């Protein structure tokens, strides 16, 4: 399937994250079964599937967010640029600086807008002085397309912004540590259509710098923002392919049923 939209063409073929036979267990519950996937660099990859299919669980494996759940066990191999992220020598905090995450509900820190963005670079020691920090804060707020709205009130609390602004602030915070991959777990589900469109536009811009992986319940959103789509069902990765192909001519009948609204 040739995608005619130039800007949406999957042009980067470098594999950023590679998962082989990934398994996730919550206690005895086998939540993710034998998932093999190559996430490409500078590409938006969408994970779709019905509730409970494991798409968020798998997303959280990619920056070891599941480590925080005691009963959760991950098997198989997941590598970031060839390096096993579950290796004992990998520091999850450093990993999460490289693989940033944006959550479903905007969750700014109860601090100023400035500090929300500055927090990551500060604790990771990414800057030497205030001027550099100011620069990072401004550039991240600009990249997150919120600079013009907040530049005059950087010291105001982040929680005082509107929902859509808060979510863009969280995206600015996530990219402040200079990540290589950005994971987004339903980043627009709490936003109105305008804010959603702004965040989607932003995702498309961020793609030139990072690999973006987005979990979404909105199939239209997956179709709009992603170049690659993965369909999960009952813990299996059923189909993974170019987004245009998945939405016009899916190969697996389960994908077809799901995207055309026949199974929930």
């Amino acid at each position: 399937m040739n995608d005619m939209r130039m800007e949406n063409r999957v042009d980067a073929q470098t594999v950023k994250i590679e998962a082989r036979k990934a398994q996730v267990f919550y206690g005895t519950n086998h939540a993710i079964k034998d998932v093999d996937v190559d996430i490409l660099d500078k590409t938006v990859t969408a994970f779709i599937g019905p509730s409970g299919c494991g798409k968020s669980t798998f997303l959280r494996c990619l920056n070891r967010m599941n480590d925080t759940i005691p009963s959760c066990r991950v098997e198989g191999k997941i590598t970031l640029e060839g390096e096993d992220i579950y290796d004992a020598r990998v520091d999850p905090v450093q990993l999460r600086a490289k693989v940033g995450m944006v959550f479903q509900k905007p969750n700014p820190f109860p601090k100023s807008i400035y500090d929300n963005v500055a927090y990551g670079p500060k604790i990771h020691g990414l800057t030497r002085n205030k001027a550099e920090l100011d620069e990072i804060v401004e550039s991240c707020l600009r990249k997150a397309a919120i600079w013009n709205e907040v530049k005059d009130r950087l010291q105001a609390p982040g929680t005082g912004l509107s929902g859509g602004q808060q979510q863009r602030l969280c995206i600015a915070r996530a990219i402040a540590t200079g990540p290589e991959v950005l994971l987004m777990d339903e980043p627009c589900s709490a936003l109105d259509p305008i804010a959603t469109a702004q965040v989607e536009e932003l995702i498309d811009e961020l793609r030139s710098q990072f690999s973006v992986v987005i979990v979404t319940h909105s199939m239209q959103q997956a179709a709009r923002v992603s170049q690659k789509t993965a369909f999960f069902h009952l813990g299996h990765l059923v189909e993974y392919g170019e987004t245009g192909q998945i939405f016009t001519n899916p190969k697996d009948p389960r994908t077809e049923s799901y995207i055309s609204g026949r199974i929930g």
Partner: protein
Amino acid sequence: MNSDQHIRSAFDRDLEAVQALIMKMGGMVEAALNDAATALTQRDEELAARVRAGDAAIDALEEQVQSECARLIALRSPTATDLRTVLSVMRIASSLERCGDYAKNLAKRVSVLVTMAPVGGSAGSISRMAKSVQVLLKDALDAFIQRDADAASNVRQSDQEIDQFYNAVFRELLTHMMEDPRNITAAMHLHFIAKNIERVGDHATGIAEQVIYLVTGDMAEGDRPKANSLTAEEA
């Protein structure tokens, strides 16, 4: 193919409605072709007039199909097979509308031809050609409604018979014109009729290709067989 029901039943109703419109349109076009061919052999001007008048209804139906499809895309965002169904319905509607125009044109020429002397048995050959094309169109539409890619493939293969038919009629008319120049006006009309019927055959093939796309998700591959044996000087 997916024959399961949608969770939203209104979606199924909409999809069925546009397909029902296509089948209705197909029936009208087939009848128009058939009647026009009969009018040609029977030299029945009244029947030809009815075919001419009937084209407006086909055009109106095409417009209705296109706007229903636009509405369906806007409101339901169809994907996968549903999307391919809507796309093929839109293309088939355009093809059928064109075929209706050819039938109308045939009927118009019949009104002229009845005022002239018949050109040998050419009207009969052309009428038989029209009836085979009508069968081809019917088979293509049956393949559509049954989602039968094999049947569609057969239609695609059979179009070469129509091409052969056309080549034979072309030679026949050429002979009549060379024999007696007074036949030229009538023969030219008959030739346009034959050419238009041949075009209807191409549209039937196009519909069959849409069916293949609808069922398999891929455009029909390879050149379709053509029986174009006219030499350069003849063509």
